[in-house]
């Protein structure tokens, strides 16, 4: 991982995210009144987070690879269905994945 990549992602993300937060304090509300925009915007976190789960748990670069991470995610799913709090979900996933990883 090059330092140029990580620094540029850090700086560009920080600047853009701040400018986006500023928008509402400076522009008229009617610019964002469209219902379609609101609906699509509400779905963006859902699709991006879903894709991030796939990318991090099932993919290595451009390949789908089922490994120890899969066991971790399965445990996280079970914990979420059991209504476990966030830290428990993450720790259970980490523990399962680490055990499977060391086993192999």
């Amino acid at each position: 991982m090059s330092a140029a990549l990580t620094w540029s992602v850090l700086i560009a993300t920080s600047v853009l995210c701040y400018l986006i937060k500023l928008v509402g304090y400076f522009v008229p509300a009617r610019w964002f009144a469209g219902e379609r925009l609101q609906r699509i915007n509400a779905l963006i976190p859902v699709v991006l987070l879903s894709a991030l789960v796939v990318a991090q748990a099932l993919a290595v670069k451009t390949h789908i690879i089922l490994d120890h991470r899969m066991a971790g995610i399965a445990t996280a799913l079970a914990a979420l269905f059991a209504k476990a709090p966030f830290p428990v979900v993450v720790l259970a996933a980490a523990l399962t994945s680490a055990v499977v990883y060391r086993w192999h």
Partner: protein
Amino acid sequence: MRDAVSVALTVGAYGVAFGAAGVAAGFSVLQTGLFSLLAFTGASQFAAVGVVAAGGAGLSAVAAASLLSIRNALYSLQMAPRLEVTGWRRLVAAQLTIDESTNVGLAQHSLGPAAVRHGFWLTGTGVYVFWNVFTLLGAMGAKSLGDPAAWGLDAAVPAAFLGLLWPRLQDARVRVIAGVAVVFSLVMTPILPAGTPIIATVVVAVVGGWRS
């Protein structure tokens, strides 16, 4: 007040997860800490380091993070008339405009406008402190562990994403959209360059949200 404290504590747990995710993605402890100080919007930060961890280009990482932060613009539209801030306070209010501060603030609506402002500032400041302290702890902790896989860190990060996603899946239609997004990104992973399937799933949100 109780709302603000419980929100701030929950945020601490996410902060540790983000700190670990940043380091696992190849960011230094300093960069991971700066991310929380400067960007200060959890899901976007997770997305940016997530795309980098997936081997994606910098542009994809920044685009994913920015798209996720559009909701903050909608929050600031809500808060602007309620906070009535001017000058430098407006710049500070903007940085503190996130899910938690807006929602706790608006939830005080029945107690009057002063309570809304109080809830916003208290939650925003509390979350800012907790998020940054715990990001740093998570980043330093992850750094000292070494091989991320040996400690399950590579599974903890997607589990954290799943934890962020879960509360949004109450609605059946949203669950279908999430399912389509999962299938879409699985199919696109071998076809598109690394990291870009994440940003490409925005198509699913546009199609899914086009009609009511």
